[in-house]
């Protein structure tokens, strides 16, 4: 089985015209980690993901995948998009095979089995519901054993129930594959449900992070879960004003413990320097 790959963004700057999207961003993830990036719209979350995919290049700084600096497209990465982006002229099975160098039927079938859609292998994507399309997109993303899985708000356009199902599915397939995963989302509940680490992106930098050690699969009713969600949410809401007043200071951090529910580590205002 392929394992995940270590990824790193070192002092990355990216601007579009006069608009600075990423400003001296530092971020690193260990192999196999699930990192979730939250933050307000326009905070550079998707841009960062595109940099890791190699779809966009940094103006300054470097992106490293497995220790090597990324120049072109990242061949070990696969990406899932909010709008699915299945090819309407290929059947479901052929869509899953799109990223395989040698589309092999067994592998396609296996992947569709994992997402519960093996019986739709010969259907046109137009016949699937929104949630089914994203399941196919997930199967496609994982078919080639990627060492890095980039998820750009893949559940953003799904209804609440389907979204919960998809979160479970993403979690179980990620655990099975051992790949490094980076998810961008608006949904803080989703972040806490999936993340090893939640990173708050604000004004182009990784501003805060929380490590989530809750056992998987996670229960949103767990008080640690909801407390952490509240904490993160309040930071997302206020960050725009606070960001520049918080000093990248104290090495000590708060650790909240709630009975046997697991633990959450909070790094107040920690920056990656």
């Amino acid at each position, binding site marked *: 089985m392929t394992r995940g790959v270590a990824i790193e963004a070192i002092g990355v700057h990216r601007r579009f015209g006069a608009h600075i999207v990423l400003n001296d961003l530092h971020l690193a993830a260990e192999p196999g980690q699930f990192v979730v990036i939250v933050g307000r719209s326009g905070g550079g979350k998707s841009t960062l993901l595109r940099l890791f995919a190699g779809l966009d290049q940094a103006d300054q700084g470097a992106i490293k995948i497995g220790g090597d600096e990324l120049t072109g497209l990242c*061949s070990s990465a*696969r990406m899932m998009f909010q709008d699915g982006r299945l*090819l*309407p002229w*290929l059947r479901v099975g052929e869509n899953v095979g*799109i*990223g395989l160098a040698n589309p092999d039927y067994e592998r396609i079938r296996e992947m569709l089995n994992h997402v519960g859609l093996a019986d739709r292998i010969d259907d046109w*994507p*137009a016949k699937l519901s929104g949630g089914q399309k994203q399941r196919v997109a997930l199967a*496609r993303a994982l078919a080639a054993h990627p060492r890095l899985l980039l998820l750009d708000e893949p559940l953003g356009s799904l209804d609440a129930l389907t979204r919960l199902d998809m979160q479970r599915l993403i979690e179980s397939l990620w655990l099975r594959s051992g790949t490094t995963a980076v998810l961008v989302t608006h949904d803080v509940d989703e972040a806490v449900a999936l993340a090893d680490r939640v990173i708050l992106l604000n004004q182009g930098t990784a501003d805060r992070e929380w490590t989530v050690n809750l056992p998987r699969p996670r229960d949103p009713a767990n008080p640690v879960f909801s407390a952490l969600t509240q904490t993160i949410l309040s930071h997302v809401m206020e960050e725009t004003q606070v960001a520049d007043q918080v000093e990248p200071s104290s090495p000590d951090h708060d650790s909240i413990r709630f009975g046997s529910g697991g633990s959450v580590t909070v790094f107040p205002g920690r920056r990656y320097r």
Partner: protein
Amino acid sequence: MKQRFLPWLVPLSLLCLWQVSGNLGWLSTRVLPTPSAVLRAGYQLAMSGELAHHIGISSRRAAIGFAIGGLLGLLLGILTGSSRIAERLIDSTVQMLRTVPHLALIPLVILWLGVGESAKVFLVALGVMFPIYLNTHHGVRTVDPGLIEMGRVYGLQRWGLFRKILLPGALPSILVGVRYALGVMWLTLIVSETIAATSGIGYLAMNAREFMRTDVVVLSILLYALLGKLADGIARWLERLLLPWHPAHAAALPVESI
């Protein structure tokens, strides 16, 4: 059953009216021969082998001209659709040439190529090229950039991107161009065969005119209509064959499968 018959009611009644007025002498056969006379003329020509000969020649001109013009339009359209440099280099020239009505070139083409086969094939190719070029260019240009981006992340190289994303994405538009071009193809052929030819359906009609054979003239017109209809049918069939995924064609599927 009633519903299926309804669209045929008006044309069939007109046909009957035409036949009856011819039989009763209301309509001079010089002006318009009766349907039965046209059929008879067709039967005689078919028996003598002339009909097949002329249809064969016309169809061959149409097919060769369409193949050359279509291929050229397709290649140019793909080139300018997928490369900015090629677009800057070629597109404005093609657009300029497009404004010249190709049928206006007939006198010049006759001077260049005489009244032989190459003149007709050239005109058909020229007429067919532009609609296919325009629609191919537009089709390739308007393929969802998100899909192309997806293809790149999923490791598709130039050829793979073209084969799996650009071409199928542009295909609906290309087929619209093909259908339009088929119309242009017959029109060009009719005009050029009528003006200068020694064989083909247009020649058949012009020759019959000299001998006042109105029935053969009408027959020729009907033949063009039939061939046009046939070409349109082929284009529709191509669309169903090549675009089974397209929502416009999904409606043709049995209801329970949707």
